[in-house]
């Protein structure tokens, strides 16, 4: 069973007169236990591809299978459930909720997961996750009281909240220094070794060292 399978995916933005072909006929299979790196110039369609695979945006053409389930046949509610339980997002543009502490931010995806029956369970898991990313001393801090690297790690902990098998990361280290960047890459690598499917977009040259497979996009096409 592959984690994600996309078949002839195309995405067009805009109206009839002003069309942008963000993605053009992409077919690809992503396996568990592997670390994928997506590279390409700015505007080549990397974010668009992640959003489509993460079910946050709709494709114009093509098919998507997540854990062999045809996404086209799923209801809006079922898609939301997949986003909640099967996929973890680490998107640079989606910051933490600034009115919630690090711990509270991590609990958010778990609050709507019926698997958890008790809040103390959720709290314990959030604390553990924050511990795993080295933030045990920052649990009660608000995002504005954390550094960029720390915020990114809270986002990683949040992405892992419901223990998803797929992680989608869009330039997770864009604003971080080398030490922090290395930490994030290593952590994601470790997760892939534990059997998760990691798909990361990054401009960093160092990312190449960690990736099992590099996918290059150019003007919406696979190279």
């Amino acid at each position, binding site marked *: 069973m592959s984690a994600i399978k996309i078949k002839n995916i195309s995405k067009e933005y805009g109206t009839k007169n002003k069309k942008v072909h963000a993605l053009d006929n992409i077919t690809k299979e992503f396996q568990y236990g592997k670390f994928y790196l997506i590279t390409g110039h700015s505007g080549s369609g990397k974010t668009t591809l992640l*959003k489509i695979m*993460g079910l*946050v*945006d709709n494709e114009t053409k093509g098919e998507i299978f997540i854990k062999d389930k045809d996404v086209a046949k799923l209801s*809006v*509610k079922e898609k*939301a*459930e*997949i*986003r*909640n*339980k099967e996929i973890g*997002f680490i*998107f640079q543009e*989606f*910051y933490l*909720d600034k*009115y*919630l502490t690090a711990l*509270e931010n991590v*609990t*958010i*995806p778990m*609050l*709507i997961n019926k698997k*958890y029956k008790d*809040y103390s369970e*959720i709290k314990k898991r959030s604390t553990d996750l924050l511990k795993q990313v080295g933030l045990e001393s920052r649990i009660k801090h608000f995002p504005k009281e954390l550094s960029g690297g720390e915020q990114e790690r809270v986002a990683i902990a*949040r992405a892992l909240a*419901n223990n998803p098998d797929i992680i989608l990361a869009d330039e997770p280290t864009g604003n971080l220094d080398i030490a922090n960047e290395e930490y994030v890459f290593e952590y994601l690598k470790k997760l892939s070794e534990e059997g998760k499917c990691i798909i990361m977009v990054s401009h960093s040259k160092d990312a190449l060292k960690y990736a099992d497979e590099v996918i290059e996009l150019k003007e919406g096409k696979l190279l």
Partner: protein
Amino acid sequence: MIIPRIKIVLKKFFRNKLNYIICLLIAFCFSFSIMISSLTYSAKEYYENDIFNFVSYRIFSISNPQNKESLIKTLNNMPEIESVFDSYGYMSPWELPSFYNYFSDTKTPSIWLLGIGGSIDANNNQKINLTNKLEMVCPSMYIPYTQNGVPIKDKEIDLTSYVGKTLTIKYIDSNNPKEYEVKLVGLYDNDKIGKNYDMCYMNYQALEKINKEVLNLPKTNIYYELKNIIYEESVTNKLQNIGYYPDPVIFLNRMPAIDSLNMLVYISYGIFGVVAIIILALVYYKILKDKENNMLNKLLGYSNKNSLFNYVIDALLLFIFSIILLFVFVFLLLKIFKVIIPKYYTSFKNIPLLISYSSLIKTICLIFILSLLLNIIIFIFGQKREKHNV
């Protein structure tokens, strides 16, 4: 996991200062409008139930009736009427020789006498039933002289010490200047009715008797006294249908206090409008801010139902918090208004300021709808924007 989710929404609500500002503004502008409608309501209540029901305003007269006997019979059969009398009352003034030279001038203070049938609302919530003996009730602020129709305030005579004693009255324009000893049985608050600083009330039979003795004129007026001012219209209509046209004995400029409120009402509309614009701007700002949050929730797998739940809780918080602030504001404004209003709106001097509960309840409903609507708008906007930005 309902409780932890509510807790999270609660925390977010109270950590966002924007919510405080919105609640404060909502509470402020609505409390102001509640106060204005309460003022109007108080004035109305006061005039309807208090002033107009004062005995003077319940007395009407019919001049030169064609068939006096049948009119009296008709009036006596009306259940809305307290008493009917055929009187000379309200004719020319009676001098009070006891107060001769009271103001060290040559004029003698005088009073007008009006005969009534029922009881009179005297000071200290007393109801005095005037018997057909020589008894009268006079104004607590008795001013015998007027200048261009306005009582001269510093010519007031305090009658308090005369209550229970007899006063001598003397009919002025008569070649038969007879004197009577009349017992002052009580005082009434003439502040309530403003003008009648020299009007005393007597039982109509007693007054009729002494009038006959000094004048012996044919009776021309029939007076009737309503049980309550609310019957005014129905009785007037009934009488007009049979060809009689009653006149009130004393006219009052209806609800002058309410007219004087117009200015305040406009001010309150102004504040309402300005604040509404500010609230709109803040709501738009909140929508922009929440856009990010909305997308985040969607990303983390919150379904529409889940998001809507959060917004409804948020709306309830907005509602509850605004209402609490509203009560605080109303309480404070009530204190302030009680000091300020009598100073600048003298017609409110005697009006007890009451909160209009109907407007309070209406406002609470309005705020409830408003906070719900506000959050639903934010929810819908968030949904729309996601299409382009996520």
